[in-house]
């Protein structure tokens, strides 16, 4: 049976990863009809939502799991996977379990998590630091200290793409790295406005101001263009999620040799575990519905998880697989995963609406030097207060 799958994975590493899924699914005798839409979630999501509400849905679609698809589920437009999940015992194999929780509404499971993404990584280029004549930093503070040297050497200290979510991702990493776990929990989980406007948070915003200075002059749009600057050594570093790994891999670079990755900015080694999940809109054709279940089952299968995540550079959602092929960075991630230093992702704790507000605030802050850290903090606190 032909199943149409929409997603916005179109960069090199992403596409290679998707190809693994497709291969595996085609091997089951079905056919993966690829519906890639480039331009990120902003371009793709309206298509997905329109098609689902328009009554002509695709068979499976990517969402960041979390609250993005909540209402579609509530509206009864999504296929209930509970039966399959129980049969295959997803509860036992999915690690961390919060991933499956995000797919659960009223005790029913509606999505298949396929990977774990953690955004709090700092990627550093060995070549760049060599050129500037400073050792590769081991944490955020060293990095900030090295920035002027990088600039002198004509190297962009920090690469940052223009898209709003990248600025917010940077903020998230700085928040956990500089602010620490407690502060993070108070704000993100308890929505504590006092904490958001407190002195601890002020430090975070000071660090953001540092980052702003370091990112000054970075003109690229897309995240992987920024990553490419790190790969080619024209930028010292980038704060980006673990998916950047895929780009290094495509460029044949070796972790520890050509580049260094520092989870949690090398300060507080916590990772939040968001990720991508697939949802399966309800289809009328029973044959297709059966195939949808096959697809879901395939995605969570061991082989597919290994193949997919190796290509994508993300972590698998199963604790029970052995990623011996994983590289240095991935192993770091797996270690943290094993120690349980985990946080829920932004998509899980805040609604898309609030997330967008954060995006806007951060991108504005990162691009407009006239906004003081204090102003930004005040506005940040206001968004936290209004968050639902």
């Amino acid at each position, binding site marked *: 049976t032909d199943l149409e799958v929409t997603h916005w994975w179109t960069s090199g590493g992403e596409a290679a990863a998707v190809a693994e899924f497709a291969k595996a699914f085609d091997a089951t005798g079905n056919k993966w009809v690829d519906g890639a839409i480039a331009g990120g979630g902003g371009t793709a999501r*309206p298509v997905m*939502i329109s098609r689902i509400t328009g009554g002509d849905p695709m068979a499976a679609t990517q969402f960041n799991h979390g609250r993005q698809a909540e209402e579609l589920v509530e509206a009864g437009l999504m296929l209930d996977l509970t039966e399959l999940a129980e049969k295959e015992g997803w509860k036992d194999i999915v690690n961390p379990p919060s991933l499956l929780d995000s797919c659960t509404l009223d005790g029913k499971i509606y999505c298949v998590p396929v990977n774990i993404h953690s955004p709090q990584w700092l990627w550093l280029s060995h070549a760049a630091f060599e050129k500037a004549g400073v050792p590769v930093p081991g944490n955020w503070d060293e990095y900030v200290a090295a920035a002027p040297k990088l600039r002198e050497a004509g190297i962009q200290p920090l690469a940052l793409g223009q*898209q*709003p979510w990248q600025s917010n991702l940077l903020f998230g990493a700085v928040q956990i790295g500089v602010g620490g776990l407690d502060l993070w929990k108070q704000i993100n989980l308890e929505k504590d406005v006092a904490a958001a406007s407190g002195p601890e948070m002020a430090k975070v915003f000071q660090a953001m101001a540092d980052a702003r200075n370091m990112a000054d002059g970075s003109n690229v749009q897309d995240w992987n263009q920024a990553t490419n600057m790190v790969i080619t050594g024209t930028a010292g570093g980038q704060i980006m999620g673990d998916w950047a790994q895929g780009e290094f891999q495509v460029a044949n670079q070796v972790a520890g040799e050509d580049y260094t990755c520092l989870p949690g900015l090398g300060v507080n080694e916590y990772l939040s575990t968001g990720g991508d999940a697939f949802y399966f809109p309800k289809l009328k054709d029973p044959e297709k519905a059966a195939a949808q279940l096959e697809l879901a089952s395939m995605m969570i299968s061991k082989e597919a998880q290994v193949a997919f995540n190796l290509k994508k550079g993300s972590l698998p959602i199963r604790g029970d697989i052995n990623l011996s092929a994983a590289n240095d960075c991935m192993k770091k991630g797996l270690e943290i995963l094993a120690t349980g230093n985990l946080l829920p992702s932004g998509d899980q704790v805040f609604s898309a609406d609030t997330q*967008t507000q954060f995006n806007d605030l951060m991108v*504005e802050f990162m691009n407009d030097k006239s906004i003081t850290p204090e102003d930004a903090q005040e506005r940040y606190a206001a968004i936290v207060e209004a968050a639902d």
Partner: protein
Amino acid sequence: MTTTSTAAASQRPIRLFRNKAAKIAAIPMILTALVVFMGGTIWTIVFSFTKSRLLPRADFIGLDQYERLWSSSKWMIAIENLIIFGLCSLVFSLVIGFVLAALLDQKIRFENTFRTIMLYPFALSFIVTGLVWQWILNPDFGIQHVVRSAGWESFSFDPLNNQAIVIYGILIAGLWQGTGLIMCLMLAGLRGIDEDIWKAARVDGIPAWKTYIFIVIPMMRPVFVTTLVIIASGIVRLYDLVVAQTSGGPGIASEVPAKYVYDAMFLSQNLGQGFAGSTMMLLAVLIVLIPWAYMEFGGRQRD
């Protein structure tokens, strides 16, 4: 008279059924106008008072969405940008379009060639336009780079990466695409002006520029009105160009209302907020449109 007394007066037909075919033929238009445009608009307005998130839900919360809209700095920037872009593109489109049309109207050689050159960008999509100009204005490859590598090191022209002037960078591309059509409209208008007016002005010894400003332009009012409608509708809809060129950046410096609405609806998954934004935009459109409709239909019946 024989006729009056004998012939049975034929019945006056029911009004609704006069010109039946015309009315039937107009049904698609009527449906579109009523169902799509009116219906869609009303639906939008109604749901702008709700708390709709991903899906429209009749969960009324009064004016909350509007309060948030107007307290959002992104919206304010979007409005500001729209005003700047709108005014500039209105003025420049009209001025450039008119000047070009006036130049082409001088009985010049190669008129066709020049006209085609100016008009062809109109055939391209905003995506393409945005892309090309993003590329040309890119400080690392484009004009700035070229000038600098030619020796002028301090030269700086990077509108797309400079918050303060990013909207003008978009304007450059917008004008590139749109002025050709305006030029065509103006040219058609100029050609419609009575030759004798020009002759009269020459006999009166009035220089050409004065003739244009004091006589010809005032005579071209209908053309300007049509042109204004076309330009204005383009301005309100400005979206693709921004997305293709800057995605609203740097920061949020080049946000525009249509993008705000789109983002609110599909990125933030906050339909209510998006609808509130749309409603404000529609309101602005009405303010532009009502005077036009009045001029079009109010003043005279048919000429």
